[in-house]
């Protein structure tokens, strides 16, 4: 009989192998799902994973994958600090929305002035600050009133969703829009547009910032006191206390950092791919980024790869919906399987299988 036995130490091998195995399991399960729905399983998987990168229309899909991955990576990097330290910001979606509102608000306040050198940097700052302030609420409540940051940050997502709807029909509504909801399109406002830096690559300013964030996070984790404190607090809060880590300050820093990155991701999204403040702007990047963070093992490089993979399933999934007539729910199920199998495989990191009855050496 098989038995699970706790490893004395988490397995180094499985820490890295588990996500890969999870992807393989997801593909196998997904093939079963697609076959069950009456589709060619190989073709379905190929459409999702292969075609967007190497297929006939890859030149159109690759930039889209990058655009989709950029906010996911940016948000997930921010979250990874808190998650490592055991500080759970579940409300990145809200911070993302508020960052977008603040960034767009600054741009629209200047409309139609042409001064990109001033307006675009100001928007970035506004996005950072917007997300940061939205995260400051759960941070203060946690530090001074001992509330649960999971609940508070999550609830604030719903507040942010209502706010963006209100702004889209109120203060930020396009005055030339025939009374329809939605702001002016920032992509048509040269001073505020988050365009591709190199045309046709998908590398807009948000994607560049995401790469930059990956590098900075990597350095922080490996070379900096802050990264050490974060890891220590996550592994052993008591030890961290003895080592002089101020727990409250750490909570503040982790929440504000993740809020600021989510906020700036929202700003890059609203001035780029989305273009305008609308009630339908929220697209669950803030929640998907949580999956990305864990899929990437809370490691900057892992998050980079996981973000790209997740984006790939979105883009490929859409193509599969259209060309193979897969229902959209099947794609969502497929993405859900990814997290599910990762959690399942995770067992191998801390446990190992053992045949009961076998001799113990």
């Amino acid at each position, binding site marked *: 009989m098989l038995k699970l036995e706790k490893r004395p130490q988490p397995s180094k091998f499985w820490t890295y192998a588990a996500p890969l195995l999870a992807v393989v399991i997801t593909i196998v399960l997904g093939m079963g799902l697609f076959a069950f729905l009456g589709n*060619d399983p*190989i*073709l379905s*998987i*190929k459409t999702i994973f292969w075609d967007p990168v190497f297929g*006939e*229309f890859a030149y*159109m899909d690759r930039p*889209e994958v990058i*655009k989709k991955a950029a906010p996911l990576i940016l948000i997930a990097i921010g979250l990874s600090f808190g998650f490592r330290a055991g500080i759970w910001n579940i409300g990145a979606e809200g911070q993302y929305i508020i960052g977008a509102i603040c960034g767009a608000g600054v741009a629209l306040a200047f409309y139609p002035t042409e001064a990109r050198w001033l307006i675009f940097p100001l928007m970035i700052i506004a996005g950072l600050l917007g997300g940061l302030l939205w995260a400051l609420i759960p941070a203060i409540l946690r530090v001074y009133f001992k509330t649960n940051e999971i609940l508070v940050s999550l609830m604030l997502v719903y507040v942010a969703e209502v706010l963006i*709807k209100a702004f889209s*029909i*109120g203060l930020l*509504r396009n005055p030339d829009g*025939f*009374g*329809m*909801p*939605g702001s002016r*399109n920032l992509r048509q406002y040269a001073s505020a547009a988050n365009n591709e830096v190199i045309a046709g690559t998908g590398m807009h300013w948000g994607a560049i910032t995401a790469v930059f964030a990956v590098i900075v996070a990597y350095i922080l984790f490996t070379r900096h006191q802050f990264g050490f404190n974060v890891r220590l607090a996550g592994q052993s809060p008591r030890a961290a206390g003895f080592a002089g880590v101020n727990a409250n300050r750490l909570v503040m820093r982790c929440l504000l950092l993740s809020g600021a990155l989510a906020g700036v991701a929202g700003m890059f*999204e609203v001035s780029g*791919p*989305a*273009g*305008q403040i*609308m*009630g*339908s*702007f929220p*697209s669950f990047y803030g929640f998907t980024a949580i999956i990305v963070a864990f899929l990437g093992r809370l490691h900057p490089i892992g998050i980079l790869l996981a973000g790209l993979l997740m984006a790939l399933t979105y*883009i490929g999934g*859409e*193509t599969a*919906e*259209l*060309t193979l*007539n897969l229902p*959209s729910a099947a794609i969502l199920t497929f993405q859900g399987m990814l997290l599910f199998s990762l959690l399942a495989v995770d067992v191998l990191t801390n446990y190992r299988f053992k045949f009961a009855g076998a001799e113990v050496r």
Partner: protein
Amino acid sequence: MKRRTLLASGAAAAMAAVTGLPARAQEKTKVGFIYVGPINDGGWTQHHHHSAMEMVEHFGDAIEFMYQESVPEGPDAERAITQMARSGADIIFTTSFGFMDPTINVAANFPNTVFEHATGYKQADNVSVYSARFYEGRAIQGTLAGRVTQTNKIGYIASVPIPEVIRGINASYLHAKKVNPDVEFKIIWIFEWLNPAKEADAAKALIEQGCDVVLQHTDSTAPHQAAKEAGGVYTFGQAADMAEYGPMPRISSIIDNWAPYYIDRVQAVIDGTWTSTNTWDGIGTGMVGIGEVSDVVPAEYKAEAEAMRDAIATGDYHPFTGPITKQDGTVWLAEGEVANDGDLAGMFFYVEGIEGDIPS
């Protein structure tokens, strides 16, 4: 080894698909639809899809039909439309207001594909816009509501504050007032097009406040259910006939019927006569259908409503005919003056007599 052969056969299948598709595309016109909701939402999207299927039935094998449902308005819409365009669609219908900018953006990249955007206002050489004059149906609902109400309180479940919804409120208020000067409108905004729970709550709140007629500009049947449970409350079907709730509480309805338009436009593509147009049709062409007035409505009022329907259809009567004064007391239309389409398209004020403010 085995895996490699699997991959190879997959590649072969894909090759066959790739080489097979263009050959078919030569003969058939490819028609695509982008929907904002699921095709079984019971309201807006379901009716576009229903009309699309009628169009497909009409053309049979002459066309190839494809659609994508539940496309969120926002950054994803542009990609969904692009994907449809590049898979060879000749004409693409994007059926929600929020697809306006994405449609215009994609159209610029695919000059050989034509696009039809519902309820928007931005046109291009290969982008037409189309919408329905739902306010014509609202005038009839208002007339019926003013006639059947006992409490003189009429409830209105409003969705999103845009001109179309405001036109509906004004049209129904003006006509209710015309036949019953004592009516009063109570409006609840739910800021969504489809949310059965919220719609039911709104209906219950209105009924509790004494409304015995509930009009809705939202897509679910939840208000009908609430009215049925309360008893003695009249409702109107929205988007669909919702006849299953007749003869009470549902006493009539506004039905979205896009099929004739879709058949027209696809035919134009097949014939090569398609041009960019701005269509705003109403009862006259059948784009707005009026559901059967049920028999709980006294015969004289039913006849009155039907007469109005026919007069609007022939163009003898326009629901916005002066004198009409705005809520703030300024005159909008003088005696006998008829509203122009520009004013209607951007209508963002209540008419005199409606209480409260438009949310903004």
